[in-house]
């Protein structure tokens, strides 16, 4: 299936779930190149399931996910590797490797995918750490860092190979409002300066209003997308009770 050049991710009639339990069905949406796209929903609405289907950790039960026009499930060999390199993922816990220093963590994708000389990898990794504003020694172990610092270090690792898409799984989980606002500013900067497409899974309203260009809202009961559009517009004009409740904290 061909995709227009400004569409970077397209999802066609996706059904997702575990074993025989369907969690999401009839999922159709597209992410445009360079935008900040947010996947919203209450706990248990399948946000993380959708994300895992997007990045190829789970195989869709039906339908397909195309990234840059390619299906990650059917891609093999070099194609699959190229596809995997085209996006970075910031996991909820950071998922830094505890036995490696921060710099080794950030360098890891460069070690795996490039043949740069060692100090060049250090140089690039350090530049990314400066970009995410990690104010601590990169020779420390992740366990010695605060939650916010770990997120920053993990972000540096996710962008070290300059991916075109960055998936963020609940980036503000477990962080204080100030740190999470700082991270939001960082995401905004990344999307503006480095032209990265951001796909964010979240339920943090302040983050959504601050950075998201477009959102989709998932509903646990209807198991599908119940609203799509600009978050400010949805807040003011949505008619669906769940969406109104979500954006305006109104009783349903």
């Amino acid at each position, binding site marked *: 299936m061909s995709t227009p050049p400004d569409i970077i991710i397209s999802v066609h009639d996706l059904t997702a779930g575990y074993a025989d339990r369907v969690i999401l069905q009839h999922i159709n949406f597209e992410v445009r190149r360079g935008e900040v796209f947010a996947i919203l929903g209450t706990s248990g609405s399948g946000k993380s399931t959708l994300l895992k289907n997007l990045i190829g950790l789970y195989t869709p039960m039906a339908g397909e996910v195309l990234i840059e026009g390619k299906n990650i499930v059917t891609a093999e060999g070099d194609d699959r590797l190229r596809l995997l390199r085209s996006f970075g993922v910031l996991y909820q816990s950071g998922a830094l490797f505890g*036995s490696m220093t921060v710099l080794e963590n950030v360098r890891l994708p460069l070690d795996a995918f*490039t043949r*740069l000389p060692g100090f060049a990898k250090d*140089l690039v990794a350090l*530049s*990314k750490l*400066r970009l995410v504003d990690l104010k601590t*020694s*990169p020779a420390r172990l992740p366990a010695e860092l605060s939650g916010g610092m770990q997120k920053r270090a993990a972000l540096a690792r996710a962008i070290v190979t300059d991916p075109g898409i960055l998936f963020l799984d609940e980036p503000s989980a477990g962080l204080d409002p100030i740190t999470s606002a700082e991270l939001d500013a960082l995401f905004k900067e990344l999307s503006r*300066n480095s032209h990265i497409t951001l796909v964010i899974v979240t339920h943090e309203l302040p983050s959504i209003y601050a950075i998201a260009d477009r959102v989709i809202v998932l509903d646990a009961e209807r198991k599908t997308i119940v609203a799509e559009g600009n978050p400010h517009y949805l807040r003011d004009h949505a008619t669906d009770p769940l969406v109104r409740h979500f954006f305006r904290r109104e009783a349903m």
Partner: protein
Amino acid sequence: MNGEKTIPRSPRVHFELLKDGEGRLVLVLSGQLDADSASLLWRELKQELAAPPATTLEIDAAGLTHCDSAGLGLLYFLSAGQMTPDLQVTLRGLKPELQKALQSFSMEDYQAFQSQQPIKQSVTEEIGTAVIGVANDLKEMVVFIGQVASGLVVLLSHRRQIRAREVLRVFESAGVNALPIVSIISLLVGLIIAFEAAQPLAQFGAQIYVANMIGLIMVRELGPVMTAILLAGRSGSAFAAELGTMKVNEELNALETMGLDPVRFLVLQRLLASLLLTPLLTVYSMFTGVLGGILVMLGLGFPLPMILQQLESSVDIKDIAFGTGKGFVFGIIVAGIACLRGLQTRAGPSAVGESATRSVVSGILLIVITDALFAALIFLLKK
């Protein structure tokens, strides 16, 4: 024009080195500079610029259509004069957005990072740290023994706190489920020893004494020691990993803030179960081992009543009591050291695995040391 070269295998980037007579060197870059082409270009340039016959180097990056972080790293490295320390380097023509991205690179960061690399300890320091570690470990062991003893007293006076169901669960998983492996190993060890001993003893016409030997060796030594080592490897590591994971998950902290002592709540149950099951398994292992020996003797053509007669004359009830007594002590050691190692678990992803390893190593070591002490004690008492 000389020094023109297209990077092989990567047609995306193209570079030219132009020289003029006045010691000026111009590097003209064009195309796409990404991680693959940058690493190849890096190598090429290192050779080309090894001994430059010039005083200044100008990098013309106007032809670069795309440049990723690795490419920027190379540009930064060049423009900071790191590749050509004797030349004055200028960079021009870079697109404004790339110029902006270049600002996140800094040689100071790199030098600061280099100086932060951990300094290697000297041998004396390492020996000192190890000695302090062993001393602290011994101290913790003594404290732990005290905690267990006092906990045991409290538990015996408050029977309801024993949590019999947990004791039973441990008893089943560490004891009953260990029966197959204990059976196989004891039987085979009995068989092997009988086989190995039968040949040299046959030279003296003393094959019948295989029965005496297998009886004594299984009942007094191998039954208890093998059972204990199997338990240390099978259940000790499980105890350590279980408690270690609980510590990592902050479950132990939760217990403490609820006013529940982890030793009394978790350790004593495992200790009690181990205390009950080790002697039982030991006796079972003794008999299975002897059975292995009997099978070999039957194979050698001795009649069963004769073998049993020999066993009866050599193995005393005192020997069985001695072996079973060892089982009690080993049971306490295996469970105790495993729980201690579990509670000592530190932070980090490899911590639980480390605790499990340490529990098995210390468990086996202590078992063998205690066994040696038993042997020495018996020798002295009989003198």
